[in-house]
């Protein structure tokens, strides 16, 4: 079906996009500024990028962020997928009870989760650092994995699993051979969500980080509280470019798949 987009619609969309992008482009623009000024462009320079790559604190914050994101999202994916399978097999009342608790970290304000986890780690006298951050990140990402996997389980034909067992597969191997491939798209999108939320989280990390382990958002916050530092702009530019590339890749990947699908359909006809 082809639909036309009216001029007015295009104008409106342009307006919103301008609102969304203007601040980012301004940040990017001033990352190439020679001076520290945020309103006068005095000349082109890449010195803030050079400084950025020599900023040990920032680089170690970046490494911490990546380590935490990878570890916590992998752990959350495993835990969440198992949980979803388990929840699926629960009785109705138990399932709805569990689901209500699962929603809590999603609907609760982040600051309340941050504070509550901080109190928990204090109770166990855990030293704030990498471990507390990873635990905190797992606990706010697990619900997203569960919510991504559950619908796939629901769509799955339960008889397939039973058939596999009838044909002599053990429950475990039939789980991995039949169920896992079926729910894989949900698992992966849950993983992606856990990963990106972990990369981006500030508020919960703020309450659970310690003396040694700063994440990138926490470091950005401490930078924004001090003297103006165009390294922030340079960092924004780099992050923007990375995000742009990733999204283009996803988009390209999806449309390629769709084309293949269409081709297949045509062949079938």
């Amino acid at each position, binding site marked *: 079906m082809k639909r036309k987009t009216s001029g007015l619609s295009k104008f409106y969309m342009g307006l919103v996009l301008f609102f969304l992008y203007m601040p980012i482009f301004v940040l990017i623009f001033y990352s190439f500024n020679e001076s520290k000024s945020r309103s006068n462009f005095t000349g082109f320079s890449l010195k803030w990028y050079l400084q950025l790559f020599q900023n040990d604190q920032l680089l170690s914050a970046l490494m911490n962020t990546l380590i935490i994101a990878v570890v916590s999202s992998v752990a959350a994916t495993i835990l969440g997928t198992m949980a979803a399978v388990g929840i699926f097999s629960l009785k109705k009342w138990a399932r709805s009870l569990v689901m209500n608790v699962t929603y809590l970290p999603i609907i609760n304000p982040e600051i309340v989760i941050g504070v509550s986890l*901080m109190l928990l780690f*204090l109770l166990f006298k855990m030293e704030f650092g990498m471990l507390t951050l990873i635990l905190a990140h797992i606990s706010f990402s697990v619900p997203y994995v569960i919510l991504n996997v559950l619908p796939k389980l629901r769509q799955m034909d339960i008889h397939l699993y039973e058939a596999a067992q009838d044909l002599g597969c053990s429950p475990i191997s039939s789980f991995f051979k039949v169920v896992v491939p079926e729910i894989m798209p949900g698992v992966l999108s849950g993983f992606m969500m856990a990963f990106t939320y972990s990369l981006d989280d500030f508020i919960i990390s703020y309450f659970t980080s*310690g003396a040694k382990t700063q994440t990138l958002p926490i470091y950005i916050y401490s930078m924004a509280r001090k*003297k103006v530092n165009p390294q922030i702009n340079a960092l924004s530019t780099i992050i923007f470019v990375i995000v742009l590339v990733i999204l283009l890749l996803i988009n390209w990947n999806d449309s390629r798949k769709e084309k293949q699908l269409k081709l297949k359909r045509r062949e079938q006809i």
Partner: protein
Amino acid sequence: MKKLTAVLLVLCMAFGLFATGCQKENENVTVKVEDESYYSQYKDKGYEINVYNWGEYISTGADDTMDVIGEFEKLSGIKVNYTNFATNEELYAKLRTGAVSYDVIIPSDYMIGRMAKEGMLEPLNLENIPNYKFIDPQFTSKSYDPDNTYSVPYTWGTVGIIYNKTMVDEADVDTWDILWNEKYAGNILMFSNSRDAFGIALMKLGYNVNTEDEGEIKLAAEELKKQKPVIQAYVMDEIFDKMESGEAAVAPYYAGDAITMIAEAPDLAFSVPKEGTNLFIDAMCIPKGAKNKELAEVFINFMCETEVAKANIETIGYSTPQVKALEALDEDLRNNPIAYPPEDVIQNPQVFENLSDATNKLYDKLWTEILASSGH
């Protein structure tokens, strides 16, 4: 999708590695120290310490200054995890949770007194800090730490008014009243920490900054609430940008930072109000339960090295208690009346002292109320 995820992860990791790979090559140590062997004995042991300092309070290596942390790491082989806090009260809250382990912290006088009283500090072994001998006795044995058990002074200074000469009438700047002046409504910045803010209000009212009188403190809180409508923002280090760019016209801040700001923006000037000023000392301490006490002392000793102290002072503008560093300073800075004011400028210096628990609680409660008030 699977492939894509893999690509994504690889991309992220590659960026991380690329970034770490770009780190500076290990150059040679350039700093001259009293006794190199004192530091080098710790090399190659994989030691680490956690240092918690104020923001903008060390020489970082930008603009050809000394990279103090980097030099220390190269000299001693001890890795420094360096993080910042913005106010004494923030530092206190972070330590009170008890779940963080810093090795070196730099609180101000009254906060050292409070922490010492509450058993939050570790006694220092001064034998392990030979450079302590360079500290001017004028700045030691103060009431917050009478026997020099817990602290080694890092800097000292005064609090005054930093103002933009083009936006403010110079006739107004000799009194704290300027921070309440309607003429400058919307162009006034204020401290975003309770002790400094209350200190100013108490001095304005002519009270002692260490008063324990509930009535006086409440009156000061009323003053601060009255001030709220003319305030543009409550700030700490955000002040640098706002004053340098002319975003705000007048603000109270520490003399050392005023020097830094004036160097950037010649329109700015500094004055010490006639009602009096707060004379402060910030000193290096080791919090209770620090995992690497000896290494922390090594770091403190390093900070007292003449060249290091000099580099720090040149960058941050504060006044140094280290006598050799003071001698080595440029004439300009050594004779700078803002950093080293002649006696007649500071007519009525008041030193913050630790208050009673009840008063500290009252401060916390009133400060929350001030920030939460509507300002009308």
